[in-house]
C-alpha cells in the first residue's frame, strides 16, 4: 500500500486538480486562483472570452465587479455584466472619453439624420400634389406632413 501511495505521488497531477483548472472561469484564470462552485463571476465571464474580463478588470477591478453583481438580483446580473464589459471596452479604446465619446458620436449622427429627414420632408412637401396650382387632387385630402 505504501508502494502504491508512493507511486501515486510520482505520477502526473491528480485528475481532480486538472478538472478544476479546466472549469475555471476567465476571471479566476486571470487572477490565478481557484474557481469555486459559487463564483459570482463565472457565469458572465467564461473562459472562452478572456479579453472581456481583462478589460473589465483593468477599468473597474475584479472586486468592484463582483460587489456590483452581488448587489443585483440574479436575473439582472447578465445584463449588468454585459453593460460593464461594454463600458470597459469603450474606455480601453478611448482612455479619455470612453463611452461619453460614443454618446457624442451618436448624437452627431442623430443630428445629421434629423437634418437630412427635415430636408427630405421639405422636398416631399414641394413635390406633393397638394401644393401644385393645377393639382387634380386639391381639396380631396389633408396634407401628409
Amino acid at each position: 500500500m505504501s508502494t502504491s501511495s508512493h507511486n501515486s505521488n510520482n505520477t502526473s497531477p491528480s485528475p481532480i486538480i486538472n478538472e478544476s483548472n479546466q472549469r475555471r472561469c476567465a476571471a479566476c484564470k486571470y487572477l490565478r486562483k481557484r474557481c469555486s462552485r459559487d463564483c459570482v463571476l463565472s457565469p458572465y465571464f467564461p473562459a472562452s472570452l478572456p479579453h472581456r474580463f481583462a478589460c473589465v478588470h483593468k477599468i473597474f477591478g475584479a472586486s468592484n465587479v463582483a460587489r456590483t453583481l452581488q448587489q443585483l438580483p440574479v436575473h439582472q446580473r447578465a445584463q449588468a455584466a454585459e453593460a460593464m464589459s461594454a463600458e470597459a471596452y469603450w474606455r480601453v479604446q478611448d482612455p479619455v472619453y470612453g463611452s461619453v465619446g460614443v454618446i457624442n458620436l451618436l448624437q452627431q449622427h442623430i443630428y445629421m439624420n434629423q437634418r437630412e429627414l427635415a430636408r427630405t420632408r421639405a422636398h416631399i412637401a414641394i413635390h406633393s400634389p397638394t401644393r401644385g396650382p393645377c393639382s387634380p387632387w386639391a381639396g380631396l385630402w389633408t396634407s401628409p406632413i
Partner: protein
Amino acid sequence: MANEAAANSALAGGVAAAAGRPAIVHPCTACRQLRRGCRPGCVFAPCFPPSQPNRFAIVRRVYGVGNVQRLLEELPPERRPAATDSLAYEASMQLRDRVFGAAGVVSLYEHRLHSLQLELLCARAELSTYECSNRNDANRVPQITNQKFSKVCGGRGGGWGDGWYEAMRVEGCVSEAKIAERLAAATDAAVVSIRPVEDRIAATMTATAVAKSSNQIEDAANNQII
C-alpha cells in the same frame, strides 16, 4: 480653479518652508476624503476641485482609487480633466442605473438613431415616388392595400392618414405598386412602427461637445441624478 488651488497649496508650502516653519499643504478633495497627505504632484488635485466634493466620492465608489489613479497617470496632464469629466459622468450613470449604467444611454441613442434612419429611408422612398410620378405621369390601377402601406410607414395618426391614401387610390393617379415596391425595398422586412423622435431627441440632446466641457458633464450628471 482646481489648478489655482493646487498652486496655492504648493505656494503656501514653499513660503512656509522658506520661513523655517513646517510646510502646511492643504489636501485636495480626493486626499481629504482618503485622509492622507496631499503631495505636490498629486494626480487628483487638478481633476477634483474643492467645489465638487461628491465627484471624487462617486468615482471612487464605482472605479476604486487605484484604478482611477492608474487611469489618470497613463494620460498626459492636459487630457486628465476631460478624462475625469467622462469618468464622473459614467460613475453617476452607473449609480443611477445599477444594471445598465452609461451603456444604457448608448443603447437608447442607438435605438433612436436606428428608428430615425428608418424614417429617413421611408421619406426618401416617398420622395422618389413623387419624382417618378412627376416624370412618368402615368395612371395605373392600384394593386396594393392600405394596410400594407400603413404597416410599412407606421401607425402615426394624421401623417399617413387613411383618407389621403384612399383618395389617391381612388383617383389612381399614383402607382401604388410602385410605392409598395420602393417602400418594401427600402424597409425590407422591417415592419416596424416608426415614431417621430424629434421631440424626444430635442429634449434630451445635449450640446455637441459633451465631453469637452466640464460644466456640461456636471450638469448632465446632476440632472440625471436628480
